[in-house]
């Protein structure tokens, strides 16, 4: 396998982009990434998108996006793993470059979620759960994470304020991110008193409905050197699956696919979690960030909430998590999220994060964890600045 680097990153301002089409949102982000990489062409493209069909009635979207990007006829594919589609697109592109099949590959992600009503979005997102044995009974996505939250609170004593601390911290970081959908700060009281969605999860525990895209360019380290770009090397890629029905898992308070994906990525990189300086993780709900931080081994099992409340995952903490603002503040256009995580890791490793959210002490190694559904799929990538 060849050594692979990320040489270009692109993202646009996320939000309710009523004036922009599905295709234009993607093309904007892709053009920024191509320009940032300084390449004169891409050989192929892989796009993560959860459900263009349900959100905008558009499947067969990879060909359309290639055409609108000005790359008609290149090999272009769309991959899907629910909310982990972006992470899967990155891994697919990584394998394509590492294998020698292509030299310069664009990995993108896109979702346009505001062309349907709130109810339509709830329906589309719920397709990531078991239709016949969860959704049929009235389960929603916040509902499934609420089931994990109650189990975690019962078992480990995680509290309401600990959940809120995750939201407060991510909004504090997101307020410094020019691309974030909701770049405002919040307080424990505001989160604690926000509208209940599925107890104990309130609206300020939940990531929003977002239109957005992100793109990155992968190539070999040899070509990256010729481009004269900072070399941000992909040193680990881990991917794992689990039952998509939450109730089929042995333990409701851990995320086995995330644990395995993390272990696989670290093993490939020849590192331990202690070697990693910071991470972007999949905080679709506050409880998700807490459990993921435990499943990845960042914090001890059962202590994820306590560590967040103590500030250990803040910009100044012992292990900063979601410096971008996470899904909570930055937004969660599901298929784009996994790529936007890579975008933030690269920004931090290049020392280019805006508005005072740049980590001090020159971080060297960053991790991105992207999760599908209630944890039925997970992808972990580790990047290192050369």
């Amino acid at each position, binding site marked *: 396998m060849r050594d692979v680097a990320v040489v270009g990153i692109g993202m646009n301002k996320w939000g309710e982009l009523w004036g922009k089409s599905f295709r234009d949102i993607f093309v904007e982000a892709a053009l920024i990434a191509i320009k940032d990489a300084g390449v004169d062409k891409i050989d192929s493209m892989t796009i993560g998108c959860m459900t263009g069909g349900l959100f905008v009635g558009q499947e067969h979207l990879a060909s359309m996006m290639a055409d609108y990007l000005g790359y008609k006829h290149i090999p272009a594919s769309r991959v899907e793993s629910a909310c982990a589609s972006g992470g899967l697109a990155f891994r697919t592109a990584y394998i394509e470059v590492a294998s020698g099949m292509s030299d310069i590959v664009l990995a993108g992600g896109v979702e346009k979620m505001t062309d349907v009503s709130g109810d339509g979005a709830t329906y589309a997102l719920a397709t990531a759960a078991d239709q016949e044995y969860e959704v*049929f009974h*009235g389960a929603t996505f916040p509902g499934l994470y609420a089931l994990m939250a109650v189990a975690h609170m*019962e078992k480990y004593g995680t509290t309401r304020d600990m959940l809120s601390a995750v939201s407060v911290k991510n909004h504090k970081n997101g307020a410094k991110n020019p691309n974030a959908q909701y770049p405002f700060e919040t307080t424990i009281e505001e989160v604690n008193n926000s509208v209940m*969605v*599925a*107890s104990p*999860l309130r609206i300020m525990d939940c990531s929003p409905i977002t239109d957005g895209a992100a793109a990155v360019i992968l190539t070999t380290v040899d070509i990256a050197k010729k481009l004269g770009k900072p070399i941000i090397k992909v040193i680990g890629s881990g991917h794992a699956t689990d039952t998509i029905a939450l109730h089929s898992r042995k333990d409701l308070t851990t995320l086995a696919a995330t644990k395995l994906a993390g272990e696989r990525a670290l093993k490939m990189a020849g590192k331990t979690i202690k070697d990693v300086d910071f991470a972007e993780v999949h905080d679709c709900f506050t409880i998700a960030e807490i459990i993921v931080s435990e499943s990845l081994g960042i914090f001890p099992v059962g202590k994820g909430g306590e560590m967040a409340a103590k500030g250990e995952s803040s910009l100044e903490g012992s292990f900063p998590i979601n410096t971008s603002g996470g899904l909570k503040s930055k937004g969660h256009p599901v298929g784009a999220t996994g790529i936007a995580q890579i975008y933030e890791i690269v920004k931090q490793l290049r020392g280019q994060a805006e508005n005072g959210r740049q980590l001090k002490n020159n971080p060297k190694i960053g991790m991105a964890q992207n999760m599908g559904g209630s944890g039925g799929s997970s992808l972990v990538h580790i990047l290192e600045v050369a």
Partner: protein
Amino acid sequence: MFPSRIWREKGQRYRLEAGKCRTCGYIAFPPRLVCPECGAVEFETIKLPDIGKLLTYTVIRVAPSQFTDEAPYAIGIAELPNGVKLTAQLVDCDVEKIKVGMDVRIEFRRIQTHDTHGVISYGYKFVPKWY
């Protein structure tokens, strides 16, 4: 929901039919073609017990369109005496009084009425035992 989709699951929804692996005894609900524990492909059909213990629950306030009339409603995961776990609604109870660890009975109930194909679907729900 298209009628065939409901009809196909009738053994599970109406009669709690599961598949028990003839090799290792693993109980699959719904039935599967391959045992996730040992890889065997021979199963016998058994009926699940109709009692369980509540492992976790939530009260859903923002509901999908088929369930808006019922919101707020509780759903939970219960573990049956044989280790099988199910997700279902908790009914005939005060949602404020639901507690993890509570015993539930599994009863046959109506699940959805607001369906685009006019189908009324039935299945199982949890009823806390103290009622």
